[in-house]
């Protein structure tokens, strides 16, 4: 799974397979992080707007 586990070999198979996998997982992670952060910002903005009104 990781380059430090002992059965890992730097061959085509591992690079393609885990390349694809980590790429996909990365997108999901980044997407969710974005959504959560954006939602947090929006929430703060909302309350700011409420108090300033």
């Amino acid at each position: 799974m990781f380059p430090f586990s002992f059965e890992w070999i730097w061959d085509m198979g591992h690079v393609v397979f885990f390349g694809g996998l980590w790429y996909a997982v990365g997108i999901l992670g980044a997407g969710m992080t974005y959504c959560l952060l954006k939602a947090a910002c929006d929430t703060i903005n909302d309350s700011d707007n409420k108090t300033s009104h």
Partner: protein
Amino acid sequence: MDSALIPKGAKRCSFPKFTIGIAIVSAVLLWGVYAMFLCWFKGLNQTNMNDYYGFALWIWADLAVIAVGGGAFFTGLLRYILKVDELKNIINFAVIIGFICYSSALLILAIDIGQPLRGWFIFWHANVHSMLTEVAFCLSAYFAVLTIEFIPNILENRQVNKVPFFHHLAHNMHGVMAVFAATGAFLSFFHQGSLGGVAGVLFGRPFAVREGLLIWPWTFFLFTWSAAAFGPCFTLLITKITEVITGKKLVKDNVVYLLAKISGWMIITYITAKIIDTIYWAMVTAPSLGFTLSHFYTDNSFYGYWILVTEIIICGVVPGLILIMKSTRENPTLRIIAFVLGTIGICLNRWVMVLQIMAVPVMSFDTWALYIPSWQEVATTILPVAYGIILIAIAYRYLPVFPQEKELNR
């Protein structure tokens, strides 16, 4: 009693009635849970599997639910990537069904393996050459996608949506859903395919083995394709069942027709490919290994040609034809028959590609292996069904699953 949680303007049955219904299904669920714990604590000797039949009912159930759960990824693909806008009216439900199917698949896998506490070795000590590794990774990742797709729908619950953070989160997630859906489609393509690959790469099993493209046997593509083709069938079938049980129309006909038509064309193209694959395998692949087609279908008390006919013609060609022709497609009875046949067909296909492989003798002096599941296997296989019913019931009751519901039930 729970009216504050029920979507505004939606009519639901009384809470006691709902509770009783849930309780009945829960009893079945508990039976399954009991069997599940038996398997975990006493081991797989609780099953009727054996060294010949190492893959059995569960793995079939696993492959089947993933196949019929394919409706989620394919509808998602159509809705978010190909922008088939009408499908927004059924996408929530497709996602929930997918979520149920995939969580069930993961649970079944956790029961099926001999050492559940070491199950994570499949990730940690991954062998990238194994189709099963590909299945495990893509399946888990795609389950994450389904969860992500399901979350906004949960957050739209009347009470939850009152929390500003959740409201914003749901809104933002809708905004980037196309990215998630695209990732999901990518992952689904690989795990549906690699599930097909699981059988196709078994070069020691002439019944399963297929030639293919690069490292991927033809079954890889056939599985992805068939999941995309028959998944929507199942989504529509469950939608219909839900409509019957709730006594309400939940999705407009034009949406159903559209998805059914797409499904029909997918089925027809798939089944054409499947027929070509079967003929090539029967005429070229198997004979090159010394096997005639009759070897796989005769000389035993159960596995006969009827399986081939049922899978390909009755549950493949027939539903495909019904769904591509406008007149039959728009006939409610025929349409439902097509959905049912299609669902049976895809399940039968998965069953053939798992169980029949185990049954066929390969060494000339070996014998057919027949197997009947134990009650523990049956119970743990029914468990996800009960769980699915409960989850759909709860989701339907408390979440705005069907956007057209209000309009159709004014």
